[in-house]
């Protein structure tokens, strides 16, 4: 069958590769469910409160000796001392956890097994040269 007409400009209009869609065109951003919007609004409220706290100290005519940034403190606390409560198993964390916790164990099992099998084959063939040692 002969090829059809080339795509029109409207049809050829696709998002660029490796570039995230702007909020106006991204259905997840503007057409979100009520729960998502509620969560977004909550996060914004927290951010606004923290920024207000910081800016009150910053623009104070008699500033305190040390201006603490509550956002930074909360972040540092969450990253160092509050790790488990802020942990959620996501695809990324599951993959990385499996890679670094289970991966080495499987790797070394395989390495030792293959080494042993190789030595066993050589011993069966009678070619294995035992090292001159007690260890």
């Amino acid at each position: 069958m002969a090829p059809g007409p080339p795509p029109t400009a409207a049809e050829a209009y696709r998002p660029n590769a490796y570039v995230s869609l702007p909020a106006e065109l991204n259905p997840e951003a503007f057409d979100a469910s009520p729960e998502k919007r509620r969560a977004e609004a909550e996060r914004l409220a927290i951010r606004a409160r923290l920024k207000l706290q910081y800016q009150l100290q910053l623009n104070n005519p008699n500033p305190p000796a040390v201006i603490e940034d509550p956002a930074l403190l909360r972040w540092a606390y969450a990253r160092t001392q509050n790790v488990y409560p802020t942990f959620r198993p996501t695809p990324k964390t599951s993959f990385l956890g499996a890679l670094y916790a289970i991966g080495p164990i499987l790797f070394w099992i395989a390495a030792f097994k293959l080494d042993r099998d190789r030595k066993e084959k050589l011993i069966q063939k009678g070619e294995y040269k035992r090292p001159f040692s007690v260890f």
Partner: protein
Amino acid sequence: METMLNTLTLITLITLTIPLLLPLLSKKFKPNPLTIMYTTKMAFTTSLLPMMLFMYSNAECITSYWEWKIMTNFKIPLSLKMDQYSMMFFPIALFVTWSILQFAMWYMSSEPYIDKFFSYLLMFLITMLLLTIANNMFLLFIGWEGVGIMSFLLIGWWQGRAEANTAALQAVLYNRIGDIGLIMSMMWMASNTNTWEIHQNFHQECTPTLPLLGLILAATGKSAQFGLHPWLPAAMEGPTPVSALLHSSTMVVAGIFLLIRTHPMLTNNQTALTLCLCLGALSTLFAATCALTQNDIKKIIAFSTSSQLGLMMVTIGLNQPQLAFLHISTHAFFKAMLFLCSGSIIHNLNGEQDIRKMGSLQKLLPVTTTCLTIGNLALMGTPFLAGFYSKDLIIENLNTSHLNTWALLLTLLATTFTATYTTRITLMVQTGHTRTAVITPMNENNQTITDPITRLAMGSILAGLLITSYIIPTKTPPMTMPTTTKTAALIITALGITLALELASMTQTLTQPKQNTYLNFSSSLGYYNPLTHRLTTTKLLNNGQKIATNLIDLSWYKKMGPEGLATMQLMMTKAHTKAHTGLIKAYLESFALSVLIILLYLD
């Protein structure tokens, strides 16, 4: 003959340990600097006898003392090897140490803890000699770690100074990375040849590359080859006697010495030899490039040491261990003397170490500056001074060997740079108009200063001749080569000197030069320190915290283990408590249900 050799060497070693052991036996005896210096002088004279015995008879000797019976079938004896290397090294190290201790009596005279300082230097010397005479990797390791620790304590001697502490820590960490290689080689030897004796590890066939890589890593760490080199210039934070003893003559050559001792393992393995060659060539050129733009006199001499160590590594790569040892011996004399001269200059200028603020010292400190000139000439390889006998032979061997041109060119270029920065020191320190402060109380009328320096100057002039006259070479030196090749070292050194003279005559005022790529590269030491010190450590520690601590330990293990189980228990409990209504009706219902089931079963 062997008994004499043994006994005299043991007497030398025991003489040295006496000032450290006697305070443990009686409260009255406290070592003071004078006694320690005289002890070292006596040990030196005692060590001359086995050296002369060895020169006369050429009889090597391995003596085993007490054996540590920790395991059947694996022997760890305390065995000492008295061969040409240890018999030559003892008198040289003791001579240099004696001169340095005498000098330190003047240099550190205002030090409140001078007794501790001298005890530390003595402890260092003992561990270094133990390393040299060890025939056993176990004893060598004891000596190796000993010199590492003493280096740490001595570099950080002025421990109130933050830079000194950083430098000491740097030295220890870089040495530790090298120790990984040494321990790996020891483990390979134990598990493959069942012995830690060095002479029992020599095989006829090619040794596997793995243990040799370990030994080369150990030498890279201890002898400041490129890659693990930053600790050596930083070690100049220590007092000048420490720099003279440890970081020029004795400790830094320990890595090269290890490769000399285990040389028969390296001989047949061309990969290891080529690695030594290229690593040494790179180190020598890199250090010489960095030395060109330094302004601190001690740093220039430190980079000079680093460059000469690279040259020694090149010699090992050329399969010439004896020549490397010859260079170690001659280098000890003139390098220690250069450090002592710079120490004298620094103290006389009231702590000034910048050569841009020195000048015209030839008339003010005649003995010191004369010996500085002799040392510099010896370093450059001036014919028939000490450095010539080793350096010229190395370059001749390099030129007549079948090896890659890159290593050859790098080494020749480094030789030129050596001549250049050495001439620069001489010109800026000794000649020209004076740039020092107006009233400086300068005098070298003290015997404690001039005697050690002149003694080492005599050594710098004569040592090369004496050693080569009395030690039989084990490998045939190259005899025939074209005239250009024979005089190559001289030509390129002369080139370096003329370059330095031209450049010096072009600058009348010491203004800051315009920045260009090469100047920046050289004066920031090749950008090595900022690139590696922060980058590797922050990446390692950050990733370690993110993955090992936060992700695995604190999150996943908790979820898989206690916390996850607790959550599941909680879910089950919550589901069950719905049934705990507290009404008698429910419990009566459960009684009825149980009775019904029992009746049905009995049926």
